[in-house]
């Protein structure tokens, strides 16, 4: 175990914030039987890794770690195409 870096801690904060917010929406959605709240909570949960990937990319840019910035941008590209495809599927339904 080595000491966590500042980027490690920033990623941890992003994940905790995403999980916490979506949990609030999900609990509210179940308690109030609100489909809108449940949908919002689940979408927030699914978007948490995307936000995390953005935080990593920004962190790598700040570190001037260009090689891994490119790697990280490739991941964002894949997530972006997934979101785009999902939007197209949803629009067709």
């Amino acid at each position: 175990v080595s000491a966590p870096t500042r980027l490690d801690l920033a990623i941890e904060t992003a994940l905790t914030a995403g999980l916490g917010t979506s949990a609030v929406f999900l609990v509210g959605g179940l308690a109030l039987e609100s489909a809108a709240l449940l949908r919002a909570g689940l979408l927030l949960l699914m978007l948490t890794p995307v936000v995390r990937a953005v935080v990593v990319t920004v962190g790598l840019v700040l570190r001037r770690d260009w090689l891994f910035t490119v790697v990280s941008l490739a991941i964002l590209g894949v997530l972006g195409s997934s979101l785009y495809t999902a939007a197209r599927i949803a629009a067709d339904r």
Partner: protein
Amino acid sequence: VAEPSTLLLFLTGAGTGLVGSLLGLGGGVFLVPLLALAMGVPIRAAIAASLISVIATASASATVNLSRGLVNLRLGLVLEVATSLGGLAGGLTAAHLSQRQLFATFAATMTLMGVLMAARSGRRNVIPDTSVDPGRLGGRILEGGTLYVYRVRRLPIGLLASLLAGAISGLLGLGGGIVKVPVLNTFCGIPIRVAAATSTLMIGVTAAASAFLYFARGDVILHLTAAVALGALPASLLGARLSERVPTRFLKLLMTAVLLVVAARMAWAAR
């Protein structure tokens, strides 16, 4: 189809989240069979619920692993490109496969991994000499008071396994940790705790890449998925904290046993 009660779903999420996070997985490998086989949830809805719950479990575990410094971020990023591509491809393909084909794929994957894990569970990957250069992707790990160095070997195998893990994730609703962790450990020389911790960070992105597709297709049953994910969250935080106290060899044996039992159950369902 009669839907299981909220409490039962919450407990199911908690149980799979706990075991999953103990093993450094997302827990989907248990959740899909439980929902689809034991509770009669339609397979696509079970897969969708699992993907979303896996995001909760893996992300919660990752927060614990990050603060422990166990995550190898660079290695994770490189492999994540492959897993997310695989996840996207798997999520797109899943719509074209029958329930039986999905079960059979599941059983075959689990058997292969279980055998692999059992065959190589006694090996050590770390070098007790800290002057060794870990290389661009390797790292250091403190175990039992000693600092060890590990180098990443056979990266192409790791990348291929990650691509497959991603595809299986998108197809079957897993995070893919069950494939990546054994391969990274046995072939690429990554200590199992680092492999598991790094995998938990990657799983979120892998599962998200296909979860959006299931959501858009209308496969997500809101109430069911919410209850399972809410159960998984606190249990995963607990499991990730406990995992440090469990001996490495026990983790490997537990994972082997789990793989083989799930494989047998899935093969039975596909017959």
